[in-house]
C-alpha cells in the first residue's frame, strides 16, 4: 500500500505549445526482448482499441516504445496535451497499473513492490526520464480535442460542398472565408 514519504513531484519533460513530452530510457532484462515486444504489442493494442474519449480524458497524443542497442535498451516516449502529473495519474488510473506492469516487468529497473501503486509507477517513470533537449511538434497549438472538433467541421464543410446549392449559399459576403477554402 502507501509509502510514508511524499511523492516526488513531476517529471516535467519539454513542452512545445500545448503539448508536453516524456522520454524514458530503460534496460531490457537479458533474454526477455521478445516477451517485452509482445507486451508492448498488447499495450499498443489496448490504446488503439480504447474508446477515443479515453485519449481526450488523459490527454494522450502519441506513444512509442523502441527496443534498441541489440535488444538491450528500451526507450519509451510519449506526448500529451495536459500537464505531467495529471497525465500520469489519469492514464494509469484509467488503463490500470497492470497495463504498465505487463511491459515494465521485462526491464531491469522493474521493482514489483514499487510498481504496485500509482505513486510508485510515477517515481519509476521519473527515475528513467530524461527531459528532451529539443522537442518540436507541428500544430503544437492544437489539443487532441480541437483536432477532433476540426475534423468534424471539415467533414461537415465537405458535405456542404457536395450539395448542389453550395455555390449559391457560399456567395454571401460573410461566407467568403469559407468560399476561399472551397476550391481545394
Amino acid at each position, binding site marked *: 500500500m502507501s509509502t*510514508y514519504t511524499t511523492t516526488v513531484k513531476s517529471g516535467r519533460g519539454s513542452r512545445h505549445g500545448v503539448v508536453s513530452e516524456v522520454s524514458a530510457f530503460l534496460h531490457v532484462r537479458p533474454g526477455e526482448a521478445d516477451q517485452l515486444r509482445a507486451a508492448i504489442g498488447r499495450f499498443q493494442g489496448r490504446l488503439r482499441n480504447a474508446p477515443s474519449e479515453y485519449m481526450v*480524458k488523459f490527454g494522450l497524443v502519441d506513444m512509442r516504445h523502441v527496443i534498441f542497442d541489440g535488444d538491450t535498451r528500451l526507450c519509451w516516449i510519449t506526448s500529451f496535451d495536459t500537464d505531467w502529473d495529471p497525465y500520469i495519474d489519469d492514464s494509469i488510473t484509467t488503463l490500470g497499473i497492470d497495463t504498465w506492469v505487463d511491459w515494465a516487468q521485462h526491464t531491469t529497473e522493474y521493482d514489483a513492490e514499487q510498481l504496485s501503486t*500509482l505513486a510508485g509507477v510515477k517515481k519509476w517513470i521519473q527515475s528513467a526520464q530524461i527531459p528532451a533537449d529539443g522537442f518540436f511538434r507541428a500544430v503544437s*497549438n492544437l489539443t487532441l480535442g480541437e483536432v477532433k472538433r476540426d475534423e468534424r467541421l471539415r467533414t461537415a464543410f465537405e458535405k456542404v460542398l457536395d450539395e448542389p446549392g453550395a455555390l449559391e449559399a457560399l456567395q454571401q459576403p460573410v461566407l467568403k472565408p469559407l468560399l476561399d477554402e472551397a476550391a481545394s
Partner: protein
Amino acid sequence: MTAHMVATPDTAVDLSDVQSGVLRPRPSPYAGTYLLLRIDDRHDGRTLLGRLSESISSAGDPASDAWLNVAVTYRGLVALGVPEPSLATFAPEFRAGMAARAEAIGDVGVNAPEHWEHPLGTSDVHVALAAIARAPDRLDSLLEEAHAAVAGLPGVQVVWRQDCYALPTEREAFGFRDGISHPAVEGSGIPGSNPHEAPLKTGEFLLGHVDETGDVAPAPQPDALGRNGTYLVFRKLHQDVAAFRRYLRTHADTTEEQELLAAKFVGRWRSGAPLVLAPDRDDPELGADPARNNAFRYRPDDDAGLRCPVGSHIRRMNPRDAIVTGDVRLHRMIRRGTSYGPVLPEGVLDDDGADRGLCFVFVGAHLDRQFEFVQSLWMNEGRAFSAPAEKDPLVGPNDGDGVFTIPRRPIRRRLTDLPRFVVNRGGEYCFAPSLTGLRWLADLTD
C-alpha cells in the same frame, strides 16, 4: 462525544473523529467568523489546541447548528514543535505554502502574493479557526469559546479576523445561490447532492483511507496525527460585482437576455436552477429544491454545451460525465463558500470601494491533483475543454481580452472582451487534523 460509526461493505468512517466542516455542508443561512492566529510559544500553542479539542465540532453530530473547526499551517506545525520526521511526511505543496505555489496555480499579476491582504501568505499564519452557525447568537457563543481558548496565553496572538454571513438574499455577491453541489463520501453515510454521482472513495477527502486510485495517499505521520485529517485551502476572493453587472448590461439588451447571459457564465440561473435542466428560463422552484437542483449529468443531452456551455463555471469546477481532459473522479473537490462584505445595492453599476466577496475553502486529501489541478488546468486555462485560450468566465484571470464561447444555434456566440471579476486577496494551505490528531498535537512534549 459519542462514537458514530457508519459501516459500509468497504469502509467505515468514525465520524466522531472527523471535524464537522470536512464532511458536512455548512448551515444555511449562516453567520461565521474566521480567525487566524500566530503561535509565539509552542507550549501556549499546544495548550490552545488542547482547550479547542473540547469545543471542536465533529461530523458525528448531524443536528448541530453551530460548529467550530480548526486547521494548522505548515509554519504552525513548526511553531508547535512537531518533530522534523513528522513534518517531512506532509505533502510538499502544504509545506511550501500557498504563496510559494503562486506561479503554479496562477496567482500572478493582481493575484500575486505581494498584493495579498496582510498577513495572508506570510509566516505569521499558524492556526485557522472557523466558527460557523445558523444564527448570530449561536455564533457569538462559539466565539466566546474560541476567545476563552486563547485567553491567558500570551504566546498566542489573533492576527486576522474575517466575518462572514449569508446575504439577505441567501446568495453570494454576484447574486447566485451558492453551496449547492457536494459529493457523497464513501463510508460517511452523508448523502451527496447529485444522485447520479457514485460516492467518492473515502481517501479522496480523508487521509489514511483508500482513494480513487486504489491506493492510500501518503499521509502525515504518525497515524494518530494524519488519519482522518485532511488538507484545506483557504482563499479570500474579492468579487467586483459592479463590473459583472456592467458587463451584463453592455452585452445583453433586455433584462431577460442579461439574466440568460449571467446564467451562461455560471451554468445555473441565479436561483440555482441548472441550465441543463432549465435551459430557457429560470425555475426558482427547481433552484430551491435540494433534491433536484443538482440531479443532472451533461451527457447525452448536453454534450455540445448548448444548454450549459462547456466552459461555464460549474462545468469547469466539476465536468461530471462530460468528456474532458482529466479523470473527473480524481479531481473532485469539496468546496465551502461563505460571503463577506456588504451587499452592493440592486441596480448599482459603480463600485463603492467596499470589500466584498467569498471566503472559499477547499477540502481534500490531495492538494496537487484536486485543488491545484482544478485551479490551474480547469479554471485558469482551457486545454481540457478544447479551447486552450479560454479561462473560467466568472472567476478566471481574464484581463479585458478574455474569451468565452457560448454554444448556440444557429451560430455560437463568442465573447472576446471578458474582464476579471474576481481577485484573490490571499490565502493559505492548511491541515485539518482529526480530533485524535488535534489531541496528538496538544499532547506534544519537548
